[in-house]
């Protein structure tokens, strides 16, 4: 799942409304009144008795990932002899409920994300360490992937399945017809943006209605300008948001803004991607998991991308956001042995390949995976991820998610509304609220 999965990717994935919540609540109260016999139906826990039954809490609720996930689980069942019961929950609801889910009666295995977003729950003791699983699967993964799957205590907590990079997309035919070259430095980048505007394009398509999209741009400018280590320090709030280096990031972004599609705060990224696919916008910066997945199969061969250009030569193009999705186990699962057995299978190149048969915009993370079936987008993604020294997870995965959701993202929208001015007030507003989320 992409970084947006905490949110509704479009208007049709409505989050649980208060009304619906009340209805559920009323329903539950009614059930309880009918006596324990009925109430028990609501809390049946598959897998508590049978040793070969594993329950799996999944947030792969959109049609495509759901099908890919079901395919992989079916293969896992065949290979391990386990019966896996999948409990799919709308991804937005799943993620918002995670705190109470993990403290209630969670499934044996559940879907989650690498990065601080995983480490936070490991710190709280809400998830099970998976060192036993990693003893068996460790050989399939590179050191950088291994590092991304460890908690702050050095133990493993997640088994990864795929990732995907955030890159600048363009259409090969458009670049060829206009004679544009791929920019590798900030100066070339700005020249290209200006030229594109003169040639009647929207230089950069952009949608930020769901608020998680713009942080990708912040991340990449930050890592190009201040480096990966600074990104991590800022995300963990070891550096204040009022630091002048953060202001510099926004200043660079502000230089780009005149060439970015206006009105981004009211546009879903899918609409921006459509403008780009229709050749009215020249480029778009986002994840392959979104843009490549949104492209029609007819246009897909024309789609290409490159890493965001260098800004500070000290850091070159040595970092990229490439979020990893994976699977974890709660602190005390009902079927520990079964869950571990299942994860041992999922942590193999075979399982990743089965998953990616139905998902052609993400790439597997096992280094010994058979990539012969990859399309051009996937091949290039692998190349970019392999050639990039530092893999970041994304703003809302490297930091405290609620802080990013409720504090940083609204202020980035404010920055976009202001057209790039008022940076210092944006930063002091963010910093003023940080204390609520980062204590001690």
């Amino acid at each position, binding site marked *: 799942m992409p970084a947006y999965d*905490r949110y509704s990717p479009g208007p049709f994935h409505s989050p649980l409304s208060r009304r619906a919540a009340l209805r559920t609540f009323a329903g539950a109260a009614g059930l309880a009144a009918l006596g324990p016999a009925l109430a028990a139906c609501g809390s049946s826990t598959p897998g508590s008795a049978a040793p070969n039954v594993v329950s799996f809490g999944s947030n792969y609720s959109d049609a495509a990932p759901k099908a890919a996930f079901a395919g992989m689980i079916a293969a896992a069942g065949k290979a391990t002899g386990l019966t896996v019961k999948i409990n799919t929950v709308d991804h937005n609801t799943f993620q918002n409920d995670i*705190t109470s889910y993990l403290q209630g009666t969670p499934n044996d295995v559940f879907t989650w994300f690498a990065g601080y977003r995983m480490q936070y729950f490991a710190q709280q003791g809400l998830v099970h360490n998976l060192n036993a699983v990693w003893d068996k699967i460790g050989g399939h993964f590179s050191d950088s992937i291994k590092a991304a799957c460890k908690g702050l205590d050095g133990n493993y907590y997640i088994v990864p399945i795929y990732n995907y990079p955030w890159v600048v997309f363009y259409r090969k035919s458009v670049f060829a017809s206009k004679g544009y070259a791929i920019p590798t430095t900030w100066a070339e980048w700005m020249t290209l943006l200006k030229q594109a505007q003169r040639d009647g394009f929207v230089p950069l398509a952009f949608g930020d209605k769901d608020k998680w999209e713009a942080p990708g741009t912040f991340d990449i400018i930050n890592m190009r300008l201040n480096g990966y280590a600074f990104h991590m320090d800022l995300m963990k709030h070891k550096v204040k948001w009022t630091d002048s280096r953060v202001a510099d990031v926004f200043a660079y972004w502000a230089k780009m803004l005149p060439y970015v*599609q206006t009105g981004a*705060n009211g546009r879903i990224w899918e609409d921006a991607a459509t403008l780009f696919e229709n050749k009215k916008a020249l480029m778009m910066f986002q994840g392959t998991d979104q843009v490549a997945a949104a492209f029609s199969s007819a246009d897909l061969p024309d789609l290409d991308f490159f890493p965001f250009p260098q800004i500070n030569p000290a850091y070159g193009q040595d970092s990229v956001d490439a979020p990893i999705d994976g699977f974890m186990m709660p602190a005390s699962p009902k079927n520990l042995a079964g869950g571990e057995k299942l994860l041992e299978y999922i942590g193999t190149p075979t399982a990743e390949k089965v998953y990616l048969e139905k998902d052609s915009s993400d790439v597997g993370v096992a280094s010994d995976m058979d990539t012969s079936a990859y399309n051009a987008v996937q091949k290039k993604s692998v190349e970019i991820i392999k050639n990039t020294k530092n893999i970041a997870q994304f703003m809302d995965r490297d930091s405290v998610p*609620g802080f990013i*959701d*409720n504090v940083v993202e*609204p202020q980035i929208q404010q920055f976009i*509304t202001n057209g790039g001015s008022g940076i210092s007030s944006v930063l002091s507003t963010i910093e003023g609220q940080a204390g609520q989320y980062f204590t001690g």
Partner: protein
Amino acid sequence: MATVNAQAPAGPASSAAGSRRRRRRLRTLSRRDKLVIALMAGVPLALDIGFIWFPTITSVLLSFTHWMGIGGLGTAQWIGLHNYAYAATTDPAFWPAIEHNLIWLGAFVCVATPFGILLAVLLDGKIRGSRIYQSIFFLPVMLSLALIGTIWELMYSSNYGLINSVLGANGANNAIDWLGNPKLDLWAVLIEACWRQAGYVMILYLAGLKAVDPALREAAVMDGATPSQTFWRVVFPVMRPVNVVIAVITFIESLRAFDIVYITNRGTNGLELLSTLITNNILGETTLIGYGAALGVVLLVVSLVPIITFLVVRLRQERST
């Protein structure tokens, strides 16, 4: 044991004897009577305490703490009034939320409700196809607010929406950003909300109008009243019970406004409301339960103002009639 003392009404002669008798009479209640009384008083009381007082008081207590929702309640830190101070001084969304709630109330009071009443009065006259109009205006009420938000999102979409396409403002650079411009989006969403609210008020008022005795109108016409005089001097006062219901609904619907805004952008970027602030703080992936509870208390206090006003007015009227 139906042997209740038949000579009970002894008068206020001796209070001691009276109280003794009362005590005896209580004792003479059968076990079944006691059970029935206990059930009839106890169940509503338990529900009232369990579902209203317990959560309310817990919320008020939680509002003085910092608690991320992990571990037992014992892990909550007592921080006094900090959450309230934080809301008033630091949270950039708090004051806009209060303001937007008030604007919402104003729009319902000044636009949606009068418009709904106007529709009802017009449809109450003998217009051809009155039923069809009623159905059309009532249709939005039957849709959930979440669905209404989705429908209007398609209308407002800046590049592909109906409104901008009709206005010819759907280009890459001249598009009107209805739902993304923080100065516009509240009004855009209020149109959605009023669209629904007007239909709701209309149907309630129409039902009331149908119940008005036609003889009253006839008498007014006979006395030479104009249609507007008939409405304001005769029909409107007669409709007082319905008017009160509509006033209450208008207040409640505007204070609990949530769904449309949440579906549009989760209540940020110019659409902050108290209800969405609470939700974002309590139901998010990182939960600030204490702060969310403090916002809940603020909403409670804000809601109490119209409710108490209403009750006071109501009671005064009842006493005077």
